[in-house]
């Protein structure tokens, strides 16, 4: 007598997996990793390694000894969180702070919610904000990027372009006065601006974004609506008074804008489930970011904006349903 497997349809599977998606994100981050190593040298490697090992370690320990279940450190999700956390801190952050960041990201933001898929907030961002509030000085002293080819000595620290502009404008200076102090847009694109490790090269981030779009890991909705909102909102203000407000391109290329739009806001676990919802979510993040950047206490607002919108996601999911088939009948002739 032959024994056959009996299970419900479908009997085939598309072969996509959580692991493939997570490693897809990792591949997408490679350009930005390379750029950060190029500019920050050994320090960048130190931050990356500590952050990744920290995240994997805490995931493993918590699952093994606290939850006492199987471990999922192979699925790539803790690896992604580790790299993202490294991207979100300055390359000269003390090592023990990185470990604390990893503990916060995995322990507090991920595992306490029930692990993979259950967290409401983006773990790496929770850790970033936690570190920013706990260690504001270390988290905002940014080493100036300097190609390794220029030698390793003398790391110079300085403010980010956003910080320069914020401080300058608050002190009553005009944009034309501040322009010489900030990097050109070409430098922003290539990676010659101060900032967290993963923020420094817009081009590397965009490359990663294109890769994820092609691989269908993300869709265009969140980045486009978020960045579109930023451009329109900051553009209106700039058009109003170009001496008092930075222009849209500046906002797009500086700070955590692209890192946030491409890698943080698109985190599938913490973003809305429908494309319509994602458009609203991106809009909210863009709007809040500019509000915080211009009128808030911090020069940078992307992280707060994303975390705030993370909290609203359950409501967005309730309010924005997919377009149902047959909800709007086309031509119904029998009526």
């Amino acid at each position, binding site marked *: 007598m032959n024994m*056959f497997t009996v299970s419900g*349809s479908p009997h085939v599977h598309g072969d996509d*997996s959580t692991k493939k998606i997570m490693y897809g994100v990792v591949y997408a981050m490679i350009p930005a990793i390379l750029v950060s190593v190029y500019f920050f040298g050994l320090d960048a490697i130190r931050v990356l390694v500590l952050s990744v090992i920290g995240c994997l370690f805490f995931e493993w320990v918590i699952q093994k000894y606290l939850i006492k279940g199987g471990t999922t450190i192979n699925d790539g999700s803790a690896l992604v969180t580790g790299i993202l956390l490294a991207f979100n801190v300055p390359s000269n952050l003390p090592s023990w702070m990185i470990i604390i960041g990893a503990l916060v990201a995995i322990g507090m933001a991920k595992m306490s919610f029930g692990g993979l*898929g259950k967290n409401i907030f983006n773990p790496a961002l929770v850790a970033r904000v936690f570190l920013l509030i706990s260690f504001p000085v270390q988290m905002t002293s940014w080493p100036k990027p300097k190609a390794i080819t220029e030698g390793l000595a003398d790391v110079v620290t300085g403010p980010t372009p956003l910080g320069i502009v914020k401080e300058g404008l608050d002190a009553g200076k005009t944009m034309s006065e501040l322009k010489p102090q900030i990097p050109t847009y070409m430098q922003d694109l290539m990676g010659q601006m101060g900032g967290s490790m993963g923020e420094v090269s817009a081009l590397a981030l965009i490359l990663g974004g294109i890769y994820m779009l092609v691989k269908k890991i993300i869709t265009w909705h969140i980045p486009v609506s978020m960045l579109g909102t930023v451009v329109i909102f900051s553009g209106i203000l700039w058009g109003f008074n170009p001496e008092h407000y930075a222009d849209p391109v500046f906002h797009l290329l500086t700070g955590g804008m692209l890192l946030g739009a491409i890698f943080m806001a698109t985190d599938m676990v913490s973003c809305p489930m429908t494309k319509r919802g994602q458009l609203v979510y991106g809009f909210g993040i863009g709007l809040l970011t500019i509000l915080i950047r211009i009128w808030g206490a911090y020069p940078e607002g992307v992280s707060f904006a994303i975390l705030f919108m993370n909290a609203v996601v359950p409501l967005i999911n309730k309010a924005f349903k997919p377009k149902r088939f047959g909800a709007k009948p086309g031509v*119904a002739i029998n009526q």
Partner: protein
Amino acid sequence: MGILKTFALGGVHPEENKLSANAPIEVLPLPKQAIIPLGQNLGAPSKAIVKKGDKVKVGQLIAEASGFISTNIHSPVSGTVFKLDNVIDGSGYKRPGIIINVDGDEWDESIDISDTLITEITDDAQAIIDKVKKAGLVGMGGATFPTYVKLMPPPGKVAEYLIINGVECEPYLTSDHRLMLEKGQEMLIGTKILMKALGVSKAIIGIENNKPDAINHISVLAKDFEGISVQALKVQYPQGGEKQLIKATVNREVPSGKLPIEVGCVVQNVGTAFAVYEAVQKNKPLIDRVVSVTGKAVKKPANYLARIGTPIQQLIDASEGLPENTGKIVNGGPMMGKALTSLDVPVVKGSSGILLMKKEESSRKVESPCIRCSKCTYVCPMGLEPYLLSKAAKLAKYDIAEDEMVMDCIECGSCQYTCPASIPLLDYLRLGKSKVGAIMRDRNKK
């Protein structure tokens, strides 16, 4: 070939694996014993009218329709009724059936068994419907809804388009494809007959463009048939779903919970159109059908014209036997077919193919937590949120499942096929549908 159309919402594109596409239809030898389950249509099972020891001829009525949504069953073989007993059917359960010991091949005299093509349609609409009903025709694509019911629109509804489903969007299956290539004329006459019964002047035959030979062949033949056109469609699963096919061909959306007639459409499968030709022009009831036998390890992927009641073991033998490492036998295609428990299951009116899967293809992947990627939502052709519905069903929150429109689910499996966490979404959706369906029926009773 014209512009390729398709439906707008969701959809997936599984590997096509049409291994038997080039195998001409072979007539399968008669079985020694025919096993005929009484429940072969969607709706009420038929009622046996023969008893043990009765002599029957091919095409003789052996079971009658037992309600509005039910059909006649005719003997697919000639011989003696061996017994009326429970027989194993595609569901894996034993259910009432008729077993006939085959003896010779003697046909009922009223059936025209010649090869002559009869083009002229002499019956009027009512006579056609009566013949279709008498012949026990059901939808041959697998849904097995009695055909004649679809030919009688409810009062106040008018059909405008007849849409013939030549999509065959299930991977592997090729029975409709072969039928279009080899019985194109008959299929088109059958379409004409259906048009006459429905009183429509336009029929569209939808074929996916992975069958260019069928598109060309039917397009050429259709020139002689007024009102029938061929629409080439972009390959996309589940385009063979009625609602998706209507959307793809005439761009109308059947409202939630309604039938195609609501937007003036009636959909029939190419296999059904062929069976209509045989029933109306040749007086031949539905006693055989084309069945693909296929699978990656099958030595001879083929298409057989098999009598209803033939145990699938015999089809597999004709394809040089069950491969060593067969782990799963699917009645139908890999997306919507049912896994069988035994090789004794017979061919029934709704059998479109037998798919033999290798051991390594047979088991599901290990489920992992939902990562909220929403891919299930993106591919759902009905615009549902499978992750949410499956969770609601799992937690027995049937009110939520109902509000979130679980009843609109067409069980196409696209969501589960796509889910990177390998969650058995459709298992939960089916559970949700059956529970919500029961709750709704209860409520309507009150």
